[in-house]
Structures are given as structure tokens and as C-alpha cells.
């Protein structure tokens, strides 16, 4: 794994941001995730791939306790963020989600202005003391999301009036505005055209200098393009987790090979 030839290019950090051990998820009788243990690196993009129903989105949703909102879901095992158990009863899930931001499959801007979409998080979390600070956060977030130049002259326009790709970048700006350390993305490009997809992928690559990014994707090419680490899930199991280059040239598990080469769905 430390072999220079297989080391993911551009991967500098090898510090674990999130450490999951023995994570199991049940939805009622359905055992959706079976004993998943994995270290997710800081300042790197980790891709979760696997066929529908394999548990990848379920696991992603464990990382910011989104599964708390599903009545039938039961999560066991341990997930540490910077060494702290995120399922500790003292942890406020709302605070946790400010630290672990999320971007969804379909761009879902609030029916508000572009400005208010981004300002919403900092406002409810009380991150700013005055309008000037809020303006600065909105601008910085839109810049991080590579959207500022396109919207700076119409911050009062409704967010829903933007194109699909711009809306998704607005959602990324919104997630970034609360100063998160981890960004979770659940198929962030599946509703976008190829150009908008490329822009979001470029953005993901830029974001990894500041965040730990975890992306669930159905496009294996996308996983190959944007991530340094790839985890393959199948039937609720984490089958293989390795450098992305390793997964796509010489995977160790025959199930991984069968999936990425298009032999099992």
C-alpha cells in the first residue's frame, strides 16, 4: 500500500478524519450494513461505489447521523470524528451536521434568494455578529463553490432560478458556509449534464485541500476521476477499500473486479 507506484497521486494526508469500526445498520428486519470498519482520510476525496442497495448511501448517512431521522433505523458500532464518538448522547446532531455537511443528489436550494440560501446556516448557528461578517461568509462560501463570479451581481435573485449545475454549486456553498470539516455528497452529479458535472468534479478536487470529502456515486468513471480512495460496497458489506488507482487497475477481491468491469450489477 505504501508502494510509490500504487500510491494515489496527489494524496498527501494520511491522517484519519473519521474512524468507523464495526458499524451495523438495521432498517427494521433488514440488515442494511454489516460490520463496516474504515478510516476516512482528512484532505482527501473518498468515493463509495457499489450497486443499488449495497449500503453505500446508508453508511454515508451514518457519518452525520442522518439515519436518526429514519424511525426504523438502528445504528450500532462506533464512528469517531477526530477521535470523538459522534453517537455519544451528549453530541447534538444539529451541531454535528454543521461540522459534517451534506450535498444531495438533486439540487435542493431553499425557495429563497441566492444570498439567503448561503446565509441560512451561519445565521441559525449564530456564526456571525453583524451583516458585514455574514456578507463575508456568503462571498467566501460562494467563491469556494466556484459560483461567486456567476452570481455576484444577482445575489437577491431566487436560488431556484439558477441552472441545475449552478444550483448544485449553490448547495455546496450552503454546506460550506457553516465551516464544516467533512463534506458528504450523495450522487451530487447524477442530475447534472456533463459540463456541469465536470465543474462540480473540478470543485470537489479543489475542496479536498480544505475538507475531507466523501462522495457516493453510481458512475465508476466519476469515482476514478475525483477520488484518491475508493470503497466498494456489496450486499451491505464493505468488500474492498484501497487507493483508487489500485481499485481500478488491480482490485484484490473478485467481487470488486466483477463490479467495476461491468459483470455484476
Amino acid at each position: 500500500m505504501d508502494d510509490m507506484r500504487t500510491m494515489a497521486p496527489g494524496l498527501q494526508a494520511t491522517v484519519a478524519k473519521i474512524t468507523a469500526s464495526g458499524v451495523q445498520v438495521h432498517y427494521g428486519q433488514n440488515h442494511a450494513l454489516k460490520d463496516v470498519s474504515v478510516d476516512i482520510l482528512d484532505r482527501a476525496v473518498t468515493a463509495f461505489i457499489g450497486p443499488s442497495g449495497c449500503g453505500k448511501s446508508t453508511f454515508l448517512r451514518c457519518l452525520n447521523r442522518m439515519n436518526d431521522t429514519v424511525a426504523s433505523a438502528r445504528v450500532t458500532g462506533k464512528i469517531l470524528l477526530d477521535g470523538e464518538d459522534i453517537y455519544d448522547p451528549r453530541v447534538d446532531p444539529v451541531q454535528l451536521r454543521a461540522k459534517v455537511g451534506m450535498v444531495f443528489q438533486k439540487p435542493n436550494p431553499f425557495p429563497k434568494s441566492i444570498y439567503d440560501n448561503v446565509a441560512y446556516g451561519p445565521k441559525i448557528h449564530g456564526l456571525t455578529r453583524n451583516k458585514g461578517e455574514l456578507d463575508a461568509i456568503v462571498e467566501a462560501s460562494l467563491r469556494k463553490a466556484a459560483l461567486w463570479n456567476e452570481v455576484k451581481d444577482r445575489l437577491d435573485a431566487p436560488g431556484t432560478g439558477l441552472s441545475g449545475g449552478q444550483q448544485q454549486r449553490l448547495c455546496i456553498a450552503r454546506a460550506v458556509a457553516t465551516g464544516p470539516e467533512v463534506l458528504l455528497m450523495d450522487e451530487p452529479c447524477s442530475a447534472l449534464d456533463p459540463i456541469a458535472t465536470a465543474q462540480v468534479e473540478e470543485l470537489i478536487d479543489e475542496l479536498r485541500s480544505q475538507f475531507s470529502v466523501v462522495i457516493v456515486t453510481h458512475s465508476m468513471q466519476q469515482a476514478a476521476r475525483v477520488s484518491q480512495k475508493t470503497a466498494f460496497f456489496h450486499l451491505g458489506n464493505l468488500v474492498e477499500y484501497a487507493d483508487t488507482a489500485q481499485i481500478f487497475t488491480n482490485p484484490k477481491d473478485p467481487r470488486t473486479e466483477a463490479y467495476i468491469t461491468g459483470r455484476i450489477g
Partner: protein
Amino acid sequence: MNTAHILTAFDRDLEAAQALVVRMGGLVETALLDAAEALDTRDEEMAQRVRKGDAAIDAMEEEIHTRCAQLLALRGPTAGDLRTVLTVMRIAAALERSGDYAKNLAKRTTVLSQMIQVPGASGSIRRLARTVVQMLTDALDAYIRRDVTLAEDVRRRDRDVDQMYNSIFREFLTHMMEDPRTIGPCMHLHFIAKNIERVGDHATAVAEQVIYLVTGAMPGDDRPKVDSTTAGL
């Protein structure tokens, strides 16, 4: 991988590329054996045929290259599929070079037919060619069967080829010292022997591609080199 792709056209494309490389291997083997026989029997017509036949081998490499480019662009192969495409390209390149050596051998046969004969030389060269062609055949068999053991065996046999080449080298040296009139033909014969020895290296390269295809890693450089003709260099 023995299971089929969900997309059967992908399987068809991969199989077509591999079938082409195997057919190309057959042409190269024949060219080498014919060229060595033409040299040994001073068969000018056969040498001529080998020279003309090289165009077909070159065209096959082009065809394989085009198909592999399409596979990479259109199918986005990964893992074992990717290694299959990469090895097909490398093997086709090794075969194309081997075909060039057969052609060169045939050309020199024409030149040599105008010169005095060097006793025993063409027989030694033909034996060397047979050994090398057998390595090539086995390397391609190993490729078809994904047989790492056979591929390893081919790699080991390159040592024998090096030894045969060394003894031919000494044989020619003796001839040239004993009778300076043989210097001209011996120079040509030596190039021929060296070229056939190079085909052995290409057969070894094919065998190494088999190992890479199956294991995902190239074999380490532990192959013994016994070409003593360059020992003093």
C-alpha cells in the same frame, strides 16, 4: 475472468482483439521458421515470400492498435479488462518487432546466397530459430490459457537461447580467424543470430505480459543473463 460482461458487445470486442493477436503470433512464428529454413536450404523464393509477408504482420499490428484505442475510448476498461487491452498492445508490438527480424533474416539470406558458405552456420541458426519460435508459441499458449507457470518456464528458457547464441558467436569468431574470406558472410550470419536472440527477448516479454495480466504485477528482474559476449564491455 470467466464470467461474461452484462454488455455482451464488450466481450466481443475484447475477444476479437485477443484473437487477432494470437493470429498475428501464428504469422510471426511461420515467418521465422520459413526464414530460417530458406537460409538453411538457400531457398531464394521462400526468402522472398517471408519479406513480402511482413506487410501483413505490420497491418495486423495497426488493426490491433486501432481496436485497442477504440476499446479504451468507448468501453473504458478497468482492472482485468484494462490489463487485457494493455497486454494485447504490448504483445502486438513485440510480435511486430519479431516479424521485422524475420524479414531482415530473409533479406540477408539473399545477400548470403552470393557469398561463400560457412560450414555448419545455417544449421546452428535454424536450431536457434526453432528454440526461439517454441518459446514464442508457448508464451502465446500461456497467454490464451492465462498460464503463469508456463509463462515462467518461457522466461527461464531465454537462458538457453543466450547460451546458444554465445556458442554461435564463438563459432563465427573461429571461422573468421581461420579464413578471412568468411568475414563477410559471418558478419551477416552474426546479425541474424543476434536478431533471433532478440526474438527470444520478445518472447520473454510476451511471457511477462501474461504474468502481468494474471497477477497485476510485472515479474521482478530476477532473470539470469548469460550473454557472455558482452561480459567484458
